[in-house]
């Protein structure tokens, strides 16, 4: 009996340890568990990423990222002659469900910034090729040529698009992929730096445990006034914010001092990017900074560094910018989710319309 139970414990714990050590397996598990809506599904993003960090019950609302947003773009001209490429983060790739939201765009291809993915670019000389680069405000200080070029591979011949997708099919193919991953990344798998995150995901990130997590979050917040260290609230606002965007000591914060020299350096970096991609054959290259929610919702909380407008209105800047900050600043309705670090459907629609105005100005290529 003792041997039986020890064997069960050993097999279970070993499976958990091995699967959590391998990013390959964890990704496959995550892909299914994020989709699953029963008690064994993941609760990390279903109710917003901020809720998934702090589990405050009041912030439990369905995240609008996962829902199909109703896009009502301004009337677009009918011919679709643009091939749109994008290096973007979740502000775009989580929301854009269809290429048709973009005016004049025939083909849309993207790569998720910061992921271990590559976008194969085969520029079609018969179309207008547009590149949209995106950064969230909290990361714009770290924009560099290397960051925005390492995920792009230029092809001479047409190849199928592999961006943002990692294909696995069939039992044998899966086994081959798994074994090659294990061998190629033996060291990383044995001593995976993300193992604690993976273990937490595999052992405790289930809807099943949400009531207990909410109880703990509510208890700690009510008694000690504390949230998860990555999340913060500002008195008078219902929103949950990323702490790093609010804490003035953090370089990602809207309230961290940014010098003019630094702004000059960022704009120089953006112009270098612009020139690089133009030299690679893109007809148009543009950049978009998604403002931190706190910069729009509570800019007066402390002294706002105004980094977005300072970059966008920089006199020497060549890179065309998609200015959403001023649009958000003037609208009266909420553009961000309460429980998520991303915009809501309204915010996304405003952005699409603004971006479409930019696309509409692009002339068709004369051959």
């Amino acid at each position: 009996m003792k041997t039986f139970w020890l064997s069960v414990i050993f097999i279970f714990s070993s499976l958990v340890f091995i699967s959590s050590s391998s990013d390959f397996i964890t990704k496959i598990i995550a892909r299914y568990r994020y989709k699953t809506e029963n008690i064994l599904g993941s609760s990390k993003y279903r109710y917003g990423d901020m809720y998934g960090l702090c589990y405050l019950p009041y912030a439990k609302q369905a995240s609008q990222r996962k829902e199909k947003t109703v896009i009502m773009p301004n009337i677009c001209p009918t011919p679709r002659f643009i091939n749109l490429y994008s290096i973007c983060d979740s502000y775009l790739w989580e929301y854009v469900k269809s290429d048709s939201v973009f005016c004049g765009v025939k083909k849309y291809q993207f790569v998720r910034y910061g992921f271990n993915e590559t976008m194969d670019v085969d520029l079609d000389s018969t179309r207008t090729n547009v590149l949209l680069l995106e950064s969230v405000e909290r990361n714009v200080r770290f924009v560099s040529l290397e960051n925005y070029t390492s995920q792009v591979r230029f092809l001479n011949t047409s190849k199928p698009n592999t961006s943002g997708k990692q294909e696995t099919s069939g039992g044998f193919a899966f086994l081959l992929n798994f074994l090659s991953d294990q061998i190629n990344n033996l060291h990383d798998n044995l001593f995976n730096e993300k193992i604690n995150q993976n273990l937490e995901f595999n052992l405790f990130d289930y809807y099943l445990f949400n009531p207990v997590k909410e109880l703990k979050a509510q208890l700690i917040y009510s008694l000690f006034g504390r949230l998860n260290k990555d999340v913060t609230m500002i008195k008078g606002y219902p929103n949950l914010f990323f702490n790093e965007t609010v804490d003035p000591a953090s370089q990602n914060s809207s309230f961290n001092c940014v010098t003019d020299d630094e702004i000059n350096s960022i704009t120089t970096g953006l112009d270098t990017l612009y020139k690089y991609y133009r030299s690679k054959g893109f007809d148009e290259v543009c950049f978009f900074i998604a403002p931190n929610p706190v910069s729009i919702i509570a800019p007066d909380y402390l002294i706002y560094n105004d980094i977005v407008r300072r970059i966008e209105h920089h006199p020497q800047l060549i890179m065309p910018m998609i200015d959403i900050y001023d649009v958000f600043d003037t609208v009266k309705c909420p553009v961000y989710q309460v429980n998520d670090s991303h915009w809501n459907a309204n915010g996304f629609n405003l952005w699409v319309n603004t971006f479409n105005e930019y696309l509409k100005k692009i002339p068709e290529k004369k051959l």
Partner: protein
Amino acid sequence: MIFTSLQFLVFFVIVFSLYYLLPYRMRWPLLLISSVYFYMAFSFDFILDTGLLIIIDYFFGKWIAKASGKKRQHLLIAGILINVLFLLIFIYYNFISQNIGDLLSLFYSHTPLPHLGVLVPVGLSYFTFQSISYKIEISRNNISPEPNIGIYALYILYFPKIASGPIERPKDLIPQFRVKHDFDFELMKSGLSQMAFGFFKKLVIADRLAMVVDSAYKNPQAKNGTEMLIATIFYSFQIYCDFSGYIDIALGASKTLGIRLTDNFNKPYFSTSVADFWKRWHITLSFWLRDYIYLPLAYSLSRKLKKERYLSVRSDKWIYYAATSVTFLLCGLWHGPAWHYIFWGGLFALYLCFSIATSKPRKKFYKKTGITKYPQIHTFTKTIITFVLITFAWIFFRSDSITQALLVIKQLAGISISDHLQLPINTIELLFSVFLIISLIIKEKYFFVITAKTTLSWAITLSLIILCCYFFGIFNYRQFIYFQF
């Protein structure tokens, strides 16, 4: 792989279950492989340096055992020097070179000496002391050299104690790897309870107090006397709960495998003198220093000094002062290559020397006041005085430099009733922290071990501790304080 991580918990469950599934002869290799994996999880590269040191020490052990007379002594010294050389290269070189550079710059133009950019292998100062202990015990014929290099490597690398001790003696630990341990449910219960309580001390108490301490020591200038006082008292309990929490987890984990490690603590804040404190705090280190530094030095000095009075003080007192000072300065240096650690050690030496020098007048004073007639009040007073002295010394230990420590003391001196509290925790959490400290004191005073007679009551107690850890623990993967040493 810190003890409070999920990685360690799952790793431990795997090792524990496989340990009892495997036949007896396969168990020490399992422990060795697990320990190597545990060690490499901190940093892959460290294992090469440590492996080299293990091989060298293993052979030195054999050579020392075979040799006799002067040759044995020379081999012992050579073996110890190699250990010290490792310490010098990895830990102390940069400290020494910087200080020599600073000294030279007083006389010549400043030319900094080369700086070594090496990482310090995890647990180096702990297992170096174990290696030295192994060779000295062989040279004293107290033990025979271990014939199996694998078991010797396990003595050094055994995962529950590699990162922060306890510093085990070879005669206590090595034989246990050869004993057949059958699965013992009672031992497992006891081990798991000890581990759970260790997690509680670390996650619920130490890391909660750390929020106040870190905030105060990060910028002492911005803190007032009351805030600094709270932080300083909290640090005394933070470091105790942090280190003894680690030791509880180590001892508990090892106990479930049937291997007993030496306890490092015995209610240290109930000490009635500083000498008593060092018999209860980090016991394996203080006994190591006593056996391998203090006593040999004291014997050596007593052979050289005539039994006379020097400056009207008896020679045996001079010997005590000298041996104590050297031992505690080295104790300070062992904790880290920085002047504030050395000063901290020196302060303890001063306490002990002062205690011996004033023992007669103090006895007279006690007699005069009549406090000895009330032993409970007398003990309580001595305990409080000892706690204050130790807490004062921790200021130098916690600070980043002597200058910062002096600044903390300056802020403490400016304490006032009108001080406004601005702590990183709210009043309820402050009161909760005080409640936890008082609970800990009461538990240590009256119930030293929580016993659960039936399996059901044990399971309920364990579940409650785990629930408390979950609900009130601070989960930020904060490393244990003694890990850095």
